């Protein structure tokens, strides 16, 4: 009936100019907002940098710049995976457990002070295999059994920690004995720390996957509307499992690098990373509901948080005030960065 009425109206030639103008205004505004949000985040970052460098002249030195990059490298790597998962509209809480299990597997199979086997490159393969298994398990339980990702990955966090603790046993802390790898993460090549080069590579690959592959496109589509994706016959199931697997692999890589950085294996090698990564993704402007956002924005979010921590220590804010000050600046930065979006924030309930 309605359809008939509409077609009858258009048949008599209704003027749609107003509608089209309205549409193009909405589109332009959306494009502006897409730019404005990262821009205001960049501005917030710039304000922080200016303030901190006024407070301490050592803040803006090459060595502190390299220090900040080293510290942001591992959260960046993990955050690329977390962004993909959040773009699906899901969440991955297992990162610290996966980091622990992978890091511990890796160091026990590499040259370490406990002795044992030294499998060299195979240690990497096996350790990342552990991460992959955990990721695929999360993905399968989430998709096949329809358990919310929040619960599945929370469980997987503890499974990972449990694996790490069992492997760790009651022996001495395993220390890295490979002289070539000791301190590798913070060593400088071509002006940047090695771990940051790895992070850049991961970010590049992440952007490539998101923009130019089917997995990336389907991920964004699932975040927008899974029903449409399914009815269009796209492989929602496989893509969801793949995204959780990628995220776990990246957490695993982060776990190995964190172990190299600390020089000792510890089941809790990832402690604190989750609470940098998830806020960084959200601060960057990726919607928790999925479908909107991107990896570069997350990069800005990670930098904002890392610089905030570093700057507060360098500017001599007393340690008992640091967490309160961090929180206050963070809220201010988000309000500022998300100002252009304030009417559309989906989480503001």
């Amino acid at each position, binding site marked *: 009936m309605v359809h008939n009425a509409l077609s009858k109206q258009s048949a008599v030639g209704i003027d749609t100019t107003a509608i089209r103008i309205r549409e193009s205004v909405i589109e332009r505004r959306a494009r502006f907002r897409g730019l404005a949000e990262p821009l205001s985040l960049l501005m917030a970052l710039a304000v922080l940098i200016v303030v901190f460098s006024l407070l301490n002249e050592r803040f803006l*030195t090459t060595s502190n710049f390299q220090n900040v990059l080293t510290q942001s490298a591992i959260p960046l790597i993990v955050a690329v995976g977390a962004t993909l998962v959040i773009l699906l509209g899901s969440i991955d809480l297992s990162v610290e457990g996966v980091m622990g299990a992978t890091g511990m597997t890796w160091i026990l199979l590499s040259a370490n*002070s406990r002795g044992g086997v030294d499998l060299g490159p195979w240690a990497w393969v096996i350790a990342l295999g552990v991460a992959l298994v955990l990721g695929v398990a999360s993905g399968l339980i989430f998709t096949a059994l329809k358990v919310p990702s929040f619960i599945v990955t929370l*469980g997987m966090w503890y499974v990972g920690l449990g694996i790490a603790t069992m492997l760790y046993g009651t022996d001495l802390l395993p*220390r890295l004995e490979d002289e070539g790898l000791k301190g590798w993460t913070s060593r400088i090549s071509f002006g940047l720390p090695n771990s940051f080069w790895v992070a850049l590579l991961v970010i590049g690959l992440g952007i490539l996957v998101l923009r130019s592959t089917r997995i990336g496109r389907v991920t964004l589509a699932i975040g927008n509307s899974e029903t449409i994706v399914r009815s269009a016959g796209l492989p929602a199931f496989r893509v969801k499992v793949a995204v959780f697997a990628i995220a776990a692999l990246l957490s695993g890589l982060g776990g190995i690098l964190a172990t190299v950085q600390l*020089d000792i294996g*510890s089941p809790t090698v990832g402690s604190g990373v989750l609470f940098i990564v998830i806020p960084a993704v959200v601060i960057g402007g990726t919607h928790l509901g999925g479908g909107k956002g991107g990896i570069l924005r997350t990069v800005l979010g990670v930098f904002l948080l890392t610089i905030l921590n*570093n700057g507060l*220590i360098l500017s001599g804010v007393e*340690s008992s005030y640091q967490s309160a000050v961090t929180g206050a600046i963070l809220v201010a930065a988000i309000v500022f960065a998300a100002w252009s979006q304030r009417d559309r924030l989906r989480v503001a309930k």
Partner: protein
Amino acid sequence: MSLKNKRSVFRLAAFAAVATLALAGCTSTAGGVAAGSTGPIAKEDLVLVASVINTTNPYFIANIEGAKALSKKLDIPLEIIDSQGSSQTEISKIQAILAQGKKVVMFVNTVASSDTPTIVDAVKRAGGYVSIWWNKPDNFEPWDSGDNFVAFQKHPGVDSGRCNAKAIGDALGGKGNVIMFPGVQDSTTSQTRVAGFEAEMRENYPGIKILENQPSNWDPQLANQNAKDLIAKYGDEINGVWSADDGMQLGAIQAFDDAGLLDKVKFASDGLYPDTVELMKKGYGNNAIVGETFHRGYMASAIGLYTAYLAATGEIVPSELPKEKRTSFFDIKCVTPDTLDEYLKYDTPTAAADFVDKLVETGPWDTEPATLIGGGGPEVLPKP
């Protein structure tokens, strides 16, 4: 059964499995109803329980080792509680064990000071006996709670901090700049060590300046990051680094090693972890570690459990003991690279069993190297 039904049964089963897993972590059972008993208990009715903060820190692993050695020596079964760093987990697991009805002889390395009254109350109602190690509120003393709260025991933090300060002060020749990595900021253990360190520097090493302290939550990873930031901030102005435990010290050392500064900086900390022993033996980083305090987790748990055991079997009556045997401080030793060799014997594979043998022979207060050196009330902090 139709496909749809099968699927929903499958889902239900999966849900049940997940729910069970989730609940397993937080089982909470009401404590036993029996009133606090004071009469001696037969050995066959006892079970030893050791509750530790986590099972990954070398110190807590040693706690378990000591409990196992005593369990073997006394021939009484042992249960271990892993609090997983959470007061809630700790208390609910303790209550679950009490609900099983056996009389417990318990050692608890409390997660937070404020857990102590709840744990003591639960153990008392179940008629068990408990010794608390390291953390309790200052105003909650064993003699106010009856015989079931047998003792509160620890190694004094002020002595530990002073010992480390001496080592760094001497190694730097009384001049230089020091940074500090305390543990969790509101932990009394960390606070007393910090107070001791600062007091010693103030009183005896006026040429040493404390640049800054960054609490690092007993977390090697966090200490590593904080050390990196402080290196960026102060660079080679830093001459000495103090950490409230060896775990954090390992993280800090790595940061200085990465920055190429290890050879010029001196470190001191608490605990003399076996890993630290290895580094000191090697003379790592131009003998970077100049001082440590020595105590062992297996000694703490064995002393705590054995004191509670003596109370349970009626061999001691807690209310008749002097106050320093209820709130007790046990000796810690000050170790330098020169005296390191004397302590290697405490890390042999039979060390825990050897210590337990001596402990049962000489009693909980007189066993070297952890003898009773004071107590009777909260640790007195030096005046600022």
